[in-house]
C-alpha cells in the first residue's frame, strides 16, 4: 500500500467513512468536536461542508456516556441520589427534584411544606446559575469574551449562597425523600434577598451592554428558526420550545410542589422563533425566577425540613412512577420501575438536551458554519446530560 493510500484509509472513523457521499464532489467532510471550543464538552458533529455552507450535520454522541441509567439498577434508591447531581451539572437540583419526586410518588411519601419552599428557592437559584453559564458560553461562541466573566462574577455570589445550605457548589445532592437535608440559615435568607436586589440592577445592564448590541442581534436574528411542527416532531421542551411561542412550562402545565402558589409569567418568543427568541426567553426567565425566589422567601413557612412520616429506611412497593420537573433546558423526567426490591428495577431518565439536540441536524442544513455555532449555542446543550 502506498503511503498516501494508507493515510487515506487511516483517516476518519466509522462515522465519517459511513457517511454517504454528498450530491457534489466539492464537499468536505469535517469533524467538529469532540474537542472543539464551541461544542462545550465532548459533543462531536460530523459536518459536510460546501465552502462554508453546511450540507449535512450529524451529531455523534456517547463520548461521555456514564451509564447513569444502568447504575440506577445496581444501587439502592438512596445510593442513586448523588448520581442525579452529575447528570446535568448545571441544573443539578432539578434532577435531584425529578428523582426525589419520582421516589416520593412511588412510595407515597409526603414532603414537609417548608421543604417544598426551600426546594423551590434553591432550584430556581440553580436555574439562574445555569442560565448564566449558558449566557456566558453562548457569547463566547459568538466571539464576545467579556460577558462570561461578568456572568461568572454574579454566579459566584449565587454559588456562595447555595453552598451555605447545600454544602456544595456544583454537583448538589441536597433533596431527600420527604424533604431536604438541611434547613436554610438566616444568613442565607438575607443574602439571597440582597443578591436578588443586586440582580435586578445587573440584568438591565446586561441588556444594554450585550443584548442590544447590533452585532449580537445580527448574529442571532433569523438564525435557526424552529416552527411549531418541528418542535413537536423532535419533542423540544424548555426555552427552545417557549422561544417558538408555545407557553409550555411544566411548572404551569403540570404543577408540582408549590409552584401553583406563586405568581410568575412564562416568557415566550414568536411563532417560528429564532436564536434571538430563545436568547430573550432565557434572559426573561432569569427575571421570573427572581420573582419566584423573592415570593417564596417572603412566605417561607416554619416547620421541619423533613416530613415527620418520612421513612428512615426506604421500602419501595412494587409499581412504577413518573415525575417531571422543569429544568433549565426543558422537561426533566424520571421514570422509575420497582419490583419491590432494594434497587429500582429500571430507571429511565428523560434528558431535555437530547431532544433539543436532535433539532440541530435539521436546523443546520444550509446555514453557514458560524451560524451553526450560534444555533448550537442557542439550544443550550449540556453534553453529560445528553449522554447520561
Amino acid at each position, binding site marked *: 500500500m502506498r503511503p498516501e493510500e494508507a*493515510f487515506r484509509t487511516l483517516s476518519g472513523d466509522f462515522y465519517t467513512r459511513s457517511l454517504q457521499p454528498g450530491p457534489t464532489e466539492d464537499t*468536505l467532510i*469535517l469533524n467538529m468536536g469532540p474537542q*472543539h*471550543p*464551541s461544542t462545550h464538552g465532548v459533543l462531536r458533529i460530523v459536518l459536510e*461542508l460546501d*465552502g*462554508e455552507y453546511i450540507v449535512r450535520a450529524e451529531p455523534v454522541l456517547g463520548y461521555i456516556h456514564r451509564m447513569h441509567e444502568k447504575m440506577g439498577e445496581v444501587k439502592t434508591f438512596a445510593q442513586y441520589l448523588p448520581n442525579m447531581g452529575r447528570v446535568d451539572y448545571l441544573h443539578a437540583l432539578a434532577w435531584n427534584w425529578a428523582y426525589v419526586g419520582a421516589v416520593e410518588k412511588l412510595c407515597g411519601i409526603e414532603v414537609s411544606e417548608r421543604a417544598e419552599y426551600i426546594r423551590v428557592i434553591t432550584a430556581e437559584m440553580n436555574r439562574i446559575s445555569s442560565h448564566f453559564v449558558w449566557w456566558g458560553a453562548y*457569547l*463566547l*461562541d*459568538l*466571539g*464576545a*469574551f*467579556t460577558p462570561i*466573566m*461578568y456572568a461568572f*462574577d454574579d454566579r459566584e455570589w449565587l454559588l456562595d449562597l447555595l453552598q451555605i445550605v447545600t454544602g456544595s457548589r456544583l454537583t448538589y445532592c441536597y433533596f431527600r425523600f420527604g424533604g431536604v437535608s438541611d434547613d436554610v440559615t438566616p444568613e442565607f435568607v438575607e443574602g439571597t434577598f440582597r443578591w436578588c436586589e443586586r440582580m435586578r440592577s445587573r440584568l438591565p445592564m446586561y441588556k444594554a451592554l450585550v443584548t442590544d*448590541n447590533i*452585532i*449580537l442581534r*445580527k*448574529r442571532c436574528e433569523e438564525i435557526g428558526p424552529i416552527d411549531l411542527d418541528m418542535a413537536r416532531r423532535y419533542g423540544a421542551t424548555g426555552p427552545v420550545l417557549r422561544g417558538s411561542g408555545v407557553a409550555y412550562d411544566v411548572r404551569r402545565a403540570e404543577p408540582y410542589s408549590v409552584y401553583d402558589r406563586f405568581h410568575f409569567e412564562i416568557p415566550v418568543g414568536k411563532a417560528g422563533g429564532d436564536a434571538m427568541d430563545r436568547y430573550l426567553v432565557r434572559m426573561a426567565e432569569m427575571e421570573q425566577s427572581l420573582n419566584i425566589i423573592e415570593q417564596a422567601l417572603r412566605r417561607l413557612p416554619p416547620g421541619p425540613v423533613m416530613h415527620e412520616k418520612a421513612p428512615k429506611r426506604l421500602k419501595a412497593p412494587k409499581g412504577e412512577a413518573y415525575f417531571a420537573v422543569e429544568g433549565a433546558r426543558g422537561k426533566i423526567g424520571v421514570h422509575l420501575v420497582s419490583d419491590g426490591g432494594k434497587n429500582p428495577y429500571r430507571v429511565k431518565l428523560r434528558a431535555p438536551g437530547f431532544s433539543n439536540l436532535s433539532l440541530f441536524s435539521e436546523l443546520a442544513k444550509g446555514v*453557514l*458554519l*458560524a*451560524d451553526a*455555532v450560534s444555533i448550537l449555542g442557542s439550544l443550550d446543550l449540556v453534553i453529560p446530560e445528553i449522554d447520561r
Partner: protein
Amino acid sequence: MNVLGIHIAVELIQIVVAVVAFLAFIGVNVLVLVLMERKVAGRFQRRPGPYEVGPHGSLQTLADAVKMMAKELHTPRGADKVLFWAAPIVTFAPVVVSFMPLPFGPKYLTGWEVNLGVVLILAFSSLGVFGICLAGWSSNNKWSLIGAARAVAQSVAYEIPLLLSVLAIAFQVGSLNLTEITAGQGSWPWQWNVAVQPLAFFIFVVSMLGETNRAPFDLPEAESELTAGFHTEYSGMGFGLFFMAEYAAMVVVCSVGTVLFLGGWKGPVFDGPWWFLAKVYGLLFVMMWFRWTFPRVRFDQLLNINWKWLTPLALLNLLAVAFLVKVV
C-alpha cells in the same frame, strides 16, 4: 561611477541598520503589547490579568516568549514541510519592511525615506496574507484551510477601502511621502487631517481592523468556529512568528493612521517621537477595546459591510476630495 557605488553602499548600510533596529523595536513592542492586551482584557473582565511573573506581571510575556522558543517545532503528518515552515516567515518578513518609511520623529528617525512610502507599506502589508494562505494550505488541516480561505477573501476586500481612504489623504496633501504628509499637518488636534477628513479616518479605522484580522473581524482565526484558524497546527515559534506578525501589523497600521490622520510626531508641546508612540498606543488601545467588547461578525456580514458600505463610501469620499482639491 565611484560616487554612485558609495551612494549605494551607504543606502544599503542604512537599510540593514534600520531593519535590525526595527526587528528590535518589533520585539520590544510585541512584548509590551501582549502584556498590555492581557492587562486591558483583565481590566475589562474584572480581573487583574497576569500578576505572578515580575512586579504586576510585567515579565509575563518575556517568560512566555522563552517558553515558546523552547518548544518543539512539530510538523503535522501529511503537511508540506517546506511551505509549512516558510509560511510564518513569509508572514512576518513583510511587516518588518513596512516599518521602513515611517517617520517616527523629526529628522533621522525615519528608516528609509521613500517618496512612495504609503504605497510601499500597503504593498508589503498585503503580502502578509500570502503567508497566511500558505499556512492554511500546507497544514493539511481542514480548519486551517477554511481559515486561510477566509483570510484571503477578507484581506482582499478590506484593502480596497483602506487604500481609498489613504488616497483621499494623498489627494489632499498631494504627496505619497509620509514625511511630507506629517509636515502638512499642524501641532494641534484641529490642524490634523482627522479634523479635515473624519469620514476617511472612520473608514480607515474600520478597514484597519479588517486588514489586521482583529476582533470583531478576526474571522481567519475565529476560535469558537475554526479552533484556531490558519495557525491551528503551528507550535512553538511557528505560532510565535504569526503572533508577532499580527501585533507588528497592528503597530504598522496604527502608525500609518497616526501619520496620515493624527499629525504623526507633532504635538502641542515638545514635538518628537514620544507623541508618535503615544498616538500609536492610543489607537492600539482602541483596537483592544473593540476586541474585548464586541461579538464577532459573521463572514458574509463582514463582506457585506465592506462591499456594500465601506467601499462605496470611500469612493464617494475620494470623489468629493478630488473635486474639492482640483476644482475649488
